[in-house]
């Protein structure tokens, strides 16, 4: 998909050129001794299969059920998140922002694609695309409408533009009717989009 469009189709001839270029480049860099091909496989596997938004969902579910953890998360997200084992690249400096009855938070990186990898994995295509990056700061309610989200009248929006190495995690509101649910069940309600702020946590029973 072109960065500057909403269309997810790739131009085929450009794609084959790109495929050839990266194959050529990888073998060249390996031949020159700059990279270890085996390391590349581990990098890919890490972010394709091991790190993802289930990490963030655990954090949110814990914050919903453990008031001391919630306070720690809001005071020092980096340490609180590290206590659950999520640390490292693109999550070195974490800040958690909490949705409330009167406040909705949404995260963007207008300048590139900054995103909290250890807790959410790699960002989806739309997060990195021009439609989202351009509109999130000037028309956040319009962006939410693209995601089917309409905020109640009178709710304020806070948009967090990730201009530095601080990475943001939204703590969505805990859905009503979840008083009896435990952390594991609650984590299932926490969608990735709800932790970016382009969605809300699911109502119980609404997920498959």
């Amino acid at each position, binding site marked *: 998909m072109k960065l500057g469009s909403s269309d997810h189709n790739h131009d085929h001839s450009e794609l084959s050129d790109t495929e050839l270029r990266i194959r050529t480049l990888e073998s060249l860099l390996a031949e020159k001794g700059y990279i270890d091909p085996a390391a590349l496989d581990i990098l890919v596997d890490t972010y394709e299969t091991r790190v993802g938004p289930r990490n963030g969902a655990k954090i949110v579910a814990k914050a919903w059920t453990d008031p001391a953890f919630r306070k720690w998360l809001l005071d020092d997200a980096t340490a609180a998140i590290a206590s659950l084992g999520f640390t490292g690249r693109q999550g070195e*400096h974490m800040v958690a922002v909490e949705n409330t009855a009167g406040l909705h938070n949404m995260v963007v990186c207008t300048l590139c694609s900054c995103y909290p990898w250890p807790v959410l994995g790699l960002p989806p*295509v739309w997060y990195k695309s021009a439609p989202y990056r351009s509109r999130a700061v000037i028309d956040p309610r319009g962006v939410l409408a693209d995601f089917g989200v309409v905020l109640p009248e009178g709710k304020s929006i806070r948009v967090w533009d990730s201009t530095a190495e601080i990475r943001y995690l939204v703590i969505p509101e805990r859905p009503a009717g979840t008083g009896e649910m435990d952390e594991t069940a609650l984590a299932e309600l926490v969608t990735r989009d709800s932790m970016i702020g382009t969605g809300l946590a699911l109502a119980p029973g609404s997920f498959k």
Partner: protein
Amino acid sequence: MNGAADLGGMMGFGPVMPESGEPVFHGDWERRVFAVTLAMGFTGSWNIDQSRFARESLPPAQYLSSSYYQIWLAGLEKLLLERGLVTAAELENGKAGSASAEVKRVLNAGDVGAVLAAGGPAERRRSEPARYSAGDRVVARNIHPQTHTRLPRYLRGHAGVIHAIRGAHVFPDSNAQGLGEDPQWLYSVAFSARELWGTGYPDTDRIFADCWEPYLERA
């Protein structure tokens, strides 16, 4: 720089359209671009601000017409050529035709886990105290450097309020030019939507950005 990557507030790109399925990578070439970029970053031949600048300084038509990992690939090729790690002829035919350059480190398979877990913290010590405190009114400076900056165009000239101090962090405007990390105090600054975009926004809507001290002056 005032480049195509500085997208905040631009119009005409259409709706946000999540794709179905949302694969992490779309084809093996994306996997390889991602991993090669990370591995080459680890060699210490450039810093993160230089790699961002390599991407955002691509010609605007190319930037907007490319997919995300095509931009990464183009940025990587540019850095490799600029640093003399490969030659244009080598890029063309994929065979080493000259001696390899010295690199500081090579990322070995056995070290990947530890390296990712360590990450690359940007917080540094700075002896001078922070100039601003939470609640102070500030204005984002109207700067237009040709070089890398993380002060988006849509904030420049606008007034905001210091929300929090984030610590002293590597200053990208200096680091991207190879002029050193020059750590500066970093602030979370709250800008009202009305201040940035005019009337038609709820009074309480805010846009927060992380701004280094040199981006700000007292209002």
